[in-house]
């Protein structure tokens, strides 16, 4: 199962900071993602692309998780060494494309 099968997402940035949002449409899927996408796991998933600590914010009222990486874009987008600078607009696919195992005891997988 892909993370993107349970949630939509968007990438943003400000200065050095990369800011990723994931939004599920159902509280059950939010909870699955909340349990699976721990800050430690997200740091491991993103490590091939950049090295930064990660802060996770939980927004259960909106079925949303946010992951903020304060050192992912050192010097901001202008200082990027990527082709054409603005690679971070696609960064959410690091999470959306990640394969997560089906949860054991998941008897509500068809919801949403």
């Amino acid at each position: 199962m892909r993370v993107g099968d349970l949630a939509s997402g968007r990438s943003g940035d400000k200065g050095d900071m990369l800011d990723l949002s994931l939004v599920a449409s159902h509280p059950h899927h939010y909870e699955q993602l909340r349990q699976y996408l721990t800050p430690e796991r997200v740091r491991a998933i993103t490590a091939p692309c950049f090295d930064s600590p990660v802060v996770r914010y939980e927004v259960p009222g909106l079925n949303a998780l946010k992951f903020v990486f304060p050192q992912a874009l050192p010097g901001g987008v202008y200082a990027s060494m990527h082709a054409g600078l603005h690679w971070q607009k696609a960064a959410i696919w690091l999470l959306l494309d990640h394969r997560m195992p089906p949860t054991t005891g998941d008897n509500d997988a068809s919801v949403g």
Partner: protein
Amino acid sequence: MARPAQAICSVGAGAGFAGDRIDPALDLVRSGLIDTMALECLAERTLVPAIKARADNPQAGFDPRWKRRLSPLLPLAAQHGCRVVSNLGAANPRAAAQAISGLCRELGLHQHRVAALVGDDVMGLQDHIQWAKPWQGQLIGAHAYLGSLEMAQALDQGANVMITGRVADSALFAAPARFKLNDQNDALAGALAVGHLLECGGQLTGGNFEPIGGAHQAPPLSAAQYARLGYPLAHVYADGSADISVVPGAPGIVDVLTCTLQLLYEVHDPAHYITPDLIVDFSHIQFEVKGPQSVRMHGARGKGVPPMLKVAGFVEQPGVLADVEIGFAGDGALARAQCAADVLRRRLDALPAHACQIDLVGIDSVLRGNARVAAAPPAELRVHISAACDDAATAQWVEDEVYALTLSGPAGGCSVRSEKRPRLAVVDGLIDRQLVKTELVWGQA
């Protein structure tokens, strides 16, 4: 659909960045549903060319697209009694307002009053800026993010066009509502949430949006629909709640998911979003579907006025960044491109490893190959190199080494593109808001 009688203000988002499409703003005004058109035209980085232009010419330094955008818009807005608010003043709102006053005269809008908000440029207060981290290089500009108060005053005093430099994007949209809101922080918080939702234009109404599970399907809108994507508008109520929709008759998606994604976009901590006007808690906001392209928003909470304003500083570092690509196509293109990348690593091994990045556009240049890889190698791809060089001569050498592959590298190197950029960094800082002196400057058409 008409403007709801209870709405204190109806605001449209006609642009989400300096180069955004011109026509969505015209469609919004023609709808007759809005009394204020806000144009967000100033990204963090957009200030840099503006600062440089102003250094060369004291009458320049605002968005060079201003005339193309405003010439069709201002007469239409006048006809519909719609005001225009924009940060297209960039590094020189005063000069922008003068130029726009001149345009109003040309257009026969002789009663129009154009206001400029100045004071965001805090280069003169450098000693008082608390930088988030030390930096090296030359500071070429420092701008504080201003709030909605002065804009609201100008609109209250009859400004038809309100031009700013660096302000919080959300403030552009909250300004027309500000003096009509209930006198409670939560109401202002709601108006700022509306601003945050609308500030990216089409990104609220189905642009840059993939639905859940969307990787298995076609994009949610057709090319014809993206090409005419409708931009958003909001009817704002005195308690800070709002109805969010898209210009009627235009393609677009406004639902709980598109609104939630945009609400959370770039806010960092959703329970503590810092704007110059107010710290806002978005975490209790609720969205309710009202119709096929209409969502009601309520529940924003205000947490107090921050004592400091955010400052964006722009630092030019010595040297040049070379960003060069060469293409390969046809059977075996991947192997030839990989080989070419290896040749470049060998030819450029005098460059420090951390100052040089070589990758393959089409394989690993964006997500470092971390995304799922297609089963078949691409029929065409490009080798990319970025190198942070100490001087222009070194950057030229990097470019020359890529060109040399066309004669002395693997077969078929083609379509070289090269860009040599100054090395710029954006640095964050804070400044005591009491030190930042703002002023409204009026032009007359």
